[in-house]
């Protein structure tokens, strides 16, 4: 598996390059943080809100956009399609686990995603240069670690909903509901720090924060050292829960998989 992985990454990159026009469209479709950035910039115009000025707003949402794309996965659609059409069957026959293939596919599109995002990032920096700050080394290091966990949780969540296609025709609809809750609860559309108190208390106990807000706030240097470790610890717990659930739904699903030729 480890010998095959570099080859898989090369294949994934070649695929991403082959479908570059579509990738551009998909990346540009997931730019909701830019809209939120303009709105919250306007809110912070009168004066900083709880320490958040226009610079912090722009920094938060720019990082939200970047983290959204470095932690993005689309395995839920791939799994759904492959399970419904039966094209999962040949993948199951390979000596390598199908999910390893999907991991490689997701990771290898990242360089190209970064290239597509670059002009947007430059544009935001040009629009609001005061978002720049001198980061402390520990926030960057911990933020990057946290981004890896965020990706793992997001990927595992998609595997869970993708594997539900083994059991139900409605799995994509269920994922859309999850995505709707995620976009409200993860800090994607508004910073959780600025949400009403009762809402923030609820969201503290839900997994969505761990998939986006935690790495974004860490990277932006908006979290104190004492709180940072607790946030990352929560991510580790959620990662274990989600990966465990993903392994369970996948294994149960493969057992009852009855596609053509399976």
């Amino acid at each position, binding site marked *: 598996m480890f010998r095959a992985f570099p080859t898989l990454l090369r294949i994934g990159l070649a695929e991403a390059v082959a479908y570059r026009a*579509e990738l551009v*469209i*998909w990346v*540009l*479709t*997931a*730019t*909701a943080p830019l*809209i*939120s950035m*303009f*709105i*919250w910039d*306007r*809110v912070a115009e*009168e004066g900083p*809100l709880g320490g958040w000025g226009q610079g912090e707003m722009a920094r938060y949402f720019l990082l939200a956009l970047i983290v959204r794309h470095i932690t993005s996965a689309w395995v839920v659609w791939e799994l759904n399609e492959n399970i419904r059409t039966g094209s999962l069957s040949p993948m199951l026959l390979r000596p390598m686990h199908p999910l390893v293939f999907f991991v490689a596919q997701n990771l290898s599109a990242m360089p190209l995603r970064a290239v597509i995002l670059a002009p947007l990032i430059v544009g935001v920096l040009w629009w609001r240069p005061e978002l720049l700050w001198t980061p402390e080394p520990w926030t960057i290091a911990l933020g990057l670690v946290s981004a890896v966990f965020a990706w793992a949780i997001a990927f595992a969540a998609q595997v869970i909903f993708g594997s539900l296609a083994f059991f139900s025709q409605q799995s994509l609809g269920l994922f859309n*509901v999850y995505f*709707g809750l995620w976009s*409200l609860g993860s800090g994607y*559309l*508004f910073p959780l720090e*600025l*949400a*009403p108190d009762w*809402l923030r208390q609820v969201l503290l106990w839900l997994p969505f924060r761990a998939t986006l807000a935690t790495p974004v706030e860490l990277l932006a240097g908006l979290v104190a050292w004492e709180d940072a470790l607790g946030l990352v610890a929560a991510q580790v717990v959620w990662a274990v829960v989600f990966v465990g659930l993903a392994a369970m739904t996948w294994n149960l699903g493969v057992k009852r998989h009855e596609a053509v030729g399976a």
Partner: protein
Amino acid sequence: MSLGVSIAALMRASLLTTMRYRASFIGEAVMAVAWAAWTTAPLFVVFDQAPTLAGWTADEALAVVGFFIIAQGVLEALVDPNLRAVVEHVRQGTFDFVLLKPLDAQLYVSLHRTEPLKLVHCLVGIGVVGYAADAVNAGPVELLSATLLMLAGLTLLHSLWTVVVSSAFFFVKVDNLSWLIRAGLDAGRWPVSLYRGFVRFVLTFVLPIGLVTTYPALALRGELKPSTGLGAMVIAVLFAGVARIAWTQSLRRYSSASS
């Protein structure tokens, strides 16, 4: 006269297709309400922090969201499914059958694959607008002008989609493009005056979602100058004309699947 009969027949065909799945009506209605709540939630978070924003109160901004929900409903019921069907026709070569029909092709492709169930979203949107209209004490004149402006805005959206469909004859796979436009239109859930400079220009003139959501809301507040309102309607008619030209010109370039 025969035009009316054709439209009625197309609508009845869509309705009959929908009626086969009656159970999904409840599901769609529940989803519509949930979706409206989802669309409004960021607004409440913003106005929790700032009582007014660029001259808009929460209730007034709610009217914008209401018009946005209506526009999305129309897109999902009328515009989007038809667009996807045309792209499919062009890709598979079945578009020739559309052209062979005696009915005007633009009218046919605009209505042949409608999803009436999605109009539930419009009902929810009308409810939201109604609540906001009550909150801002809109009178009959305001309601009427808001309705007219919204219709102008929807005409504009339809024209935009017609241009996208026309480009399908050259680029074939344009259904992804519709997702991109949808993402851009998402900016229309906020009053367009909250944006600045270049972004506001784009949202008013290039992807004119501001005309669909913000202008009717301004009319509801009674703050839209009659000249601006008339201007918006003239722009909508102009856009419809441009779309018609784009459609006929690209049809002329269409080389069909068999010749």
